[in-house]
């Protein structure tokens, strides 16, 4: 396997909490990359019996219709295996592009920052954060 292939294959899926996973995406999300992310995600969801997966796209520079479609596909696949995707890190600019391009994100849950996504994920798993 080439060096290039090796680095692309590495998609770290972190266990953020019990039954909550986290992936930070970066760079351009083409269909190849999207497929790798999808495979890594789905395997991990099934292995860890997770309920929610947070997909952070803060470091994805541009979201065009191709990238958005890949994200939608990822969310649908996650739904099929029985979990839910929360997409975090959607900046104002990206929100603008998504709406201007007429992309329907349908029922996908999105948040602007990671903190909101984590809070939402805790809610979905019926966890409650209590200040000591």
């Amino acid at each position: 396997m080439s060096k290039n292939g090796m680095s692309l294959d590495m998609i770290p899926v972190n266990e953020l909490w019990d039954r909550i996973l986290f992936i930070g995406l970066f760079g351009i999300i083409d269909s190849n990359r999207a497929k790798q992310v999808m495979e890594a995600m789905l395997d991990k969801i099934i292995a860890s019996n997770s309920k929610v997966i947070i997909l952070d796209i803060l470091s994805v520079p541009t979201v065009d219709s191709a990238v958005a479609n890949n994200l939608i596909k990822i969310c649908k696949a996650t739904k099929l295996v029985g979990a839910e995707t929360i997409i975090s890190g959607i900046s104002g600019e990206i929100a603008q592009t998504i709406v201007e391009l007429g992309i329907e994100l349908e029922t996908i849950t999105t948040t602007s920052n990671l903190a909101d996504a984590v809070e939402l994920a805790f809610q979905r798993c019926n966890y409650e954060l209590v200040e000591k």
Partner: protein
Amino acid sequence: MVSRIGVYVDGENLVVPIQQELDEEVVKQLQSDVLERISLKHLTGLVIDLSGTSVLDTFLARKLFDTCRMARLIGARPIISGMSAGMAISLIDLDFNPGDVETAVTLEDGLLRLRDTPKFDLIAQSDDDFDAEGDSFENLVKGSDVIDGDTEPKADDPD
């Protein structure tokens, strides 16, 4: 001869573990079996577990998901569980849309979720409850009167 898939009643729920290759005939038979059993026994939940199968094309997947929507129409909360990663990826590649059907990772998970479904409780709807509601409604009205009374003089004061 059409081989049938067993459907099992577990309390209020119908459990359908699919552990064989599906074809159109089998799914058709399954659909009518499931709907018949749900309406006969007044079941409130349905879990279709796919962990025993490895291949599912879009047509059959749509049939199964449609069965879930039909089950909802006759009063059962449907959940599809145990889909493998490979199956999900190939279905998404073929533009399959899961729509509004609930999904779970494992059968156990699906059944757990059904257990949390709020059920109608006839005992809770007693006369006392209606009285309590009436009281709180009166309080609410009284409360709003007081607020109105408070705000009016204040509005007059600056004048």
